[in-house]
């Protein structure tokens, strides 16, 4: 049996369980405050997701917009996480009831659209529209079945949820089940790590500029190699763990403290009972937050163990033809415009020169040397949103590949026809002299 039916089913059930679980957690929080949300809200929610699903299925979206929709999901997740950290001590009043509904709408809207793209692509690939959609809708309905346990789950969960705990629980559900990118959406950790890499990298650059560090080859290479450690894989992985785990743990520690004030008039056993009940409630409320920190630590360890996970293709040998290297856009087993990095290697005068061709998300082709002006030429690997320098781990956003200078791969001019790309060999040799020179010529 083809695997696309289970793929469609699991993709749908995963997304729907995430939505149902989030709804249940929110209802549990609301019921602890005697704020009920009725079936009307659930109906609005389901209607909203159905509309988005239909839109994703029947409206043709450009690849660029599809990518943007997936990004919105990641941003929503980040926003939720930040809110979780800063919401410690907040409490929302009854009037904010609809806020929770909008939260789920915003949080899972992009995921629902991504799910419809996923099913559409799957059905197109397998040329079986009905099969993919029947499996998808079955998965969707199965995920909704979680709502039958609403009452039981609600009464069990409600003592454990403060507003902060609610946001962290939603983050955990989103992290475990959100998106269509796999059984567990682990992109949080690499996303934060790449963000930190870029932050540290840009910070160092700005400091160099601010302190007018001279543009000397020694500083640009040797010193840079040492400074590069702070935006390297190991350092930023630890920084990622700190950023994701320390704030929730600080909140947990705060919740485990005794109350600062006890109501006047309480003495002896009554006073102890008040403190005990206060601490017991807070311990329960700390539990989901601690669980989130534990889960992130587990995923972090999993991610740290599995390494950077870069796509690094083997360079394909090419030869010179009348002063040019000519590469066809499409060949059996290779398509230059597929969004992946394609590496090539040219041998001339007992020397080797590596370069790559990459089609950016904005549709523009870039031809670059597999090296920059700063690092030793270890080349680049491809992550989800960036090319990554294998030597210093600097992330290069896809749409800036082909721009000259700094840590970017050195761009090479090319001539493009309908069927092929032509690169002048002399240009490759000339540009390769800049590699690891520490001197920018652009």
């Amino acid at each position, binding site marked *: 049996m083809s695997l696309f039916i289970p793929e469609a089913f699991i993709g749908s059930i995963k997304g729907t369980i995430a939505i149902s679980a989030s709804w249940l957690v929110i209802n549990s929080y609301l019921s602890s405050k005697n704020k009920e949300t009725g079936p009307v809200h659930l109906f609005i929610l389901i209607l909203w997701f159905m509309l988005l699903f239909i839109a994703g299925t029947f409206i043709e979206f450009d690849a660029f917009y599809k990518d943007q929709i997936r990004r919105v999901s990641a941003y929503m997740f980040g926003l939720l996480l930040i809110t979780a950290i800063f919401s410690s001590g907040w409490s929302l009043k009854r009037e904010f009831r609809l806020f929770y509904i909008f939260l789920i709408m915003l949080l899972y809207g992009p995921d629902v659209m991504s799910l419809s793209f996923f099913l559409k692509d799957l059905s197109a690939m397998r040329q079986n529209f009905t099969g993919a959609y029947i499996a998808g809708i079955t998965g969707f309905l199965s995920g909704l079945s979680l709502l039958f346990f609403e009452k039981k789950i609600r009464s069990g969960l409600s003592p454990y949820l403060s507003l902060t705990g609610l946001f962290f629980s939603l983050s955990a559900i989103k992290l475990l089940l959100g998106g269509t990118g796999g059984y567990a959406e682990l992109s949080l950790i690499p996303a934060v790590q790449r963000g930190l890499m870029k932050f540290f990298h840009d910070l160092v650059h700005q400091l160099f500029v601010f302190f007018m560090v001279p543009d000397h080859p020694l500083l640009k290479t040797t010193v840079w190699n040492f400074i590069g450690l702070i935006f390297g894989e190991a350092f930023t992985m630890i920084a990622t763990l700190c950023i994701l785990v320390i704030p929730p743990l600080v909140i947990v520690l705060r919740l485990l403290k005794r109350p600062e004030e006890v109501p006047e008039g309480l003495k*002896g*056993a*009554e006073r*102890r*009972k008040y*403190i*005990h*009940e206060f*601490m017991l409630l807070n311990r329960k409320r700390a539990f989901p937050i601690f669980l989130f920190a534990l889960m992130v630590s587990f995923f972090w360890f999993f991610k740290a163990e599995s390494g950077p996970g870069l796509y690094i293709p083997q360079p394909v040998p090419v030869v010179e033809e009348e002063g040019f290297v000519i590469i066809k856009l499409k060949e059996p087993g290779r398509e230059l415009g597929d969004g992946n990095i394609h590496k090539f290697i040219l041998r001339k005068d007992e020397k080797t020169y590596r370069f790559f061709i990459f089609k950016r998300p904005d549709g523009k082709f870039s031809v670059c040397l597999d090296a920059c002006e700063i690092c030793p030429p270890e080349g680049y690997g491809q992550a989800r949103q960036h090319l990554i320098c294998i030597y210093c781990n600097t992330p290069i956003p896809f749409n800036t590949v082909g721009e000259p200078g700094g840590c970017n791969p050195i761009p090479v001019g090319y001539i493009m026809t309908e069927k092929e790309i032509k690169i002048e060999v002399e240009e490759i040799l000339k540009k390769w002299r800049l590699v690891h020179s520490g001197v920018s010529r652009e």
Partner: protein
Amino acid sequence: MIKVRGLKKVYPSAVALRGVDMDIQDNEWLSIMGPSGSGKSTLLNILGGLDYPTEGSVSYDGKEITTMKEDELAVFRRENIGFIFQQSYLIPYLTALENVMLAQYFHSIVDEKEAAEALKRVGLSHRLHHRPSELSGGEQQRVCIARALINSPKVLLADEPTGNLDRENTRVILELLGELHSNEGFTIVLVTHDPYVAGWGKRLLTMEDGRIIKDESFHS
């Protein structure tokens, strides 16, 4: 107020209570006397929620306890009732202070200062860090009183609290109970064989063969 209605307790081999009805007012000191096997301790155990009756009801301020589940009853006991028995049942490897703190721990949280204060009130400030084996019988029973009262119960149930003590120590314990009763205002239900001990109460119930045969009130 404690209301007892139609209380019966039947064991496979004997009938301990044959229908007991009584009311106990708040802040009352009630003594229960009677010969061995008359049902005094069984009545006390059911009043304290340590045992279930075969028939009948016991309610505290309208709250029925005979229909409560084990865990509900445990919470009720913890928050409303203090017990003193003939034997001290102190933990032998804990000090007097730690024994009192243990009762705090099972109630809510420990507070060493408060526990020390409670032992001071029963005249044991110089014995805080002594183990039970290093205390006399009277001192052990005073630790038991401090332990029973540390969680501010509404009712203190005492089953032969002075049964192991000589007359002098019995007097000391009863004086102490009298003083705490006046100051803190909890209800005392005390079971005894000894008319001297029973005489410290304001009311005396006499039991025989599972029934109350006499109910007397004394006015000082």
